[in-house]
């Protein structure tokens, strides 16, 4: 589904990714771990198409198309979803209204009829239960006044409604207490499917106790330094990232 080859990315002239390669297939769950500043968030932002990230060389193909040629909304229409590390507040814009606009833009792209308010609301109510999101959140302004945990739950709720093919979860576990983590992880697990790939970016092994990955990658110094299964994460937890660096 996603094939990244020898990707080099600079931000403000500073090289962040230095030859990253990664292949992700449908149905797989990948965890990307690594020290601060290794380029984890840069990777998710480049895949989602955020401005300000300059791809100096390399390629990203998504469903056999050149992902880098698409603008952010086209990527979204084609099934790329980013759960933000820091979801933004948009005052006055209704949470459900934004989501409905997103869903219908995607449906339009797929040649489907737009969902009317009634059909949409029944989808929304069902999905909100997935992350135990209270119905009152649906009518509030996007992320405005939400707690850290509520914002993250809202991201996973949006993911559930938008039904992406490739979901990038950028530090979705950060700032969550243990109960919230269980709820969010439970939601993600219910969204695992054979057609969907999930990429979790995280600092902590803790998340992987709840969402078991098929692959664990260590990203350091702009490259994937090591790939393994779940046991790699446990080893990292025990020995720290220095262990990877020393073994380069």
């Amino acid at each position, binding site marked *: 589904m996603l094939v990244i080859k020898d990707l080099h990315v600079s931000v403000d002239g500073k090289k962040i990714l230095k030859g990253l390669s990664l292949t992700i297939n449908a149905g797989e769950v990948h965890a990307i771990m690594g020290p601060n500043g290794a380029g984890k968030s840069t990777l998710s932002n480049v895949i989602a198409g955020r401005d300000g990230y300059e791809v100096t060389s390399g390629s990203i193909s998504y469903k056999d198309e050149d992902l880098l040629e698409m603008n952010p909304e086209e990527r979204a229409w084609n099934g790329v979803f980013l759960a933000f590390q820091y979801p933004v507040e948009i005052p*006055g*814009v209704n949470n459900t209204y934004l*989501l409905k606009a*997103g*869903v219908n833009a995607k449906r339009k792209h797929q040649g489907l009829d737009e969902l009317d308010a009634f059909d949409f609301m029944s989808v929304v109510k069902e999905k909100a239960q997935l992350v135990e999101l209270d119905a009152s959140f649906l009518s509030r302004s*996007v992320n405005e006044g939400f707690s850290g945990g509520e914002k993250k739950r809202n991201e996973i709720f949006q993911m559930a409604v938008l039904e992406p093919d490739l979901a990038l979860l950028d530090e979705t576990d950060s700032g969550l207490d243990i109960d919230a983590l269980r709820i969010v992880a439970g939601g993600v697990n219910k969204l695992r499917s054979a057609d969907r790939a999930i990429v979790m970016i995280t600092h902590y092994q803790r998340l992987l106790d709840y969402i078991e990955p098929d692959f664990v990658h260590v990203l350091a110094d702009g490259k994937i330094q090591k790939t393994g299964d779940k046991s790699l994460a446990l080893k990292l937890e025990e020995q720290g990232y220095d262990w990877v660096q020393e073994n380069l």
Partner: protein
Amino acid sequence: MASNKEIQEQLGEREYEAGFVTDIESDTLPPGLNEDVIRHISAIKQEPEWMLAWRLEAYQHWLTMSEPTWAAVDYTPTDYQSISYYSAPKSKDDGPESLDDVDPKLLETYEKLGIPLREQEFLAGVTNVAVDAVFDSVSVATTFKSKLTEAGVIFCPISEAIREYPELVKQYIGSVVPQKDNFFAALNSAVFTDGSFVYIPKGVRCPMELSTYFRINALNTGQFERTLIIADEGAHVSYLEGCTAPQRDENQLHAAVVELVILDDAEIKYATVQNWYPGDENGVGGIYNFVTKRADCRGNRAKVSWTQVETGSAITWKYPSCILQGDDSVGKFFSVAVTTNCQQADTGTKMIHIGKNTKSTIISKGISAGKAQQSYRGLVRMGKNAENARNYTQCDSLLLGDKCGAHTFPYVEVKNPTATLEHEATTSKIGEDQLFYCQQRGLSEEDAVNMIVNGFCKDVFDELPMEFAVEANRLMEVSLEGSVG
């Protein structure tokens, strides 16, 4: 993801949908202003002698005044002798008896602008708004007169009111905005041509929304309308005002006066969607909108609200105000002003608290893009007898791009120690974070900007009647979006 520059380019491409000209023969006075012109206007309108005397008095005073320069706007001064002060479509001499008498070209014009002048639409349930359509210097049609008459409501062109209801007009005209109030009000008092008159009798709740639609069509004319609305004791009315003009390279002057009188327990809700031609992206052409709007809560427990959505005009100079004389009276001001390209706006409100327990609320949302400059200028005055007066002011500015500016000039005068004032102000830039977030969820950049801006304006749009909220939303789209190039 577009940079600010790209966003600005899009904004620069706004289209002005109302920019067409109606090709209709008009009777237009030659340019110039003197006593004869005023006598002529008064004669065309078949006005009583007292009205002419009132106009001439205003004119004499105007001659001694000079144009105000304190506003933070910069423009080529108007040559008052180069403007024509009266222009009317030829086909009518003194107001059509019914819609059947209205020139089809005019009906077509209003249809094109989306203003329903055909009453059958009401029967079909499409609209519940009575409209007075003012084309250049005259009212060309007023709908639903008979239905309103049944309820005792008077809704007619002010020129007709001066003839038909002289006592009412005489009692109230100039009682809120005196002839000599300011330069533009004095000019308007001398040469006003048409506008709407509304009287809601005691205890009557107006059965439908009232609306006046102002259209400037003729070249080199000014529009000087005068609106007078009186809500007698316990009366209630909601009034809407809309404005457009053709796209022209010359600046045109619009100097209106609006007076609202609210007696005991009465309420007026006055909403404006102003979309005068704003000039092109280089600042050529556009309407000078120099308007005096004032409401007088003369009675106890009187209530008034001004809600305005302003996207048009090259220059705006406008401060809808509330005089809160009656005890427990309430004044509200909700405003969204959008300035793009080279537009300049100096706008705000005045809340004058005189009575006890008077309350006022000011919510002002300014959006600037391109090279536009916008100022909020507001005065809150609490007089010495205004026991327990309260004001809440919130001014938010949203900037799109880095060449535009937002300025806030709040003036506060408090002479009573029991008064309470709150003031909040924010200035923010439309965040690339917000745009990216929306795009990641599948919205185009254009839709994302629109959604964020509409969210920013929500507090004000919520105050608009349904029909206008939709119109306002659409206007914002046209004003701020343009096509993605």
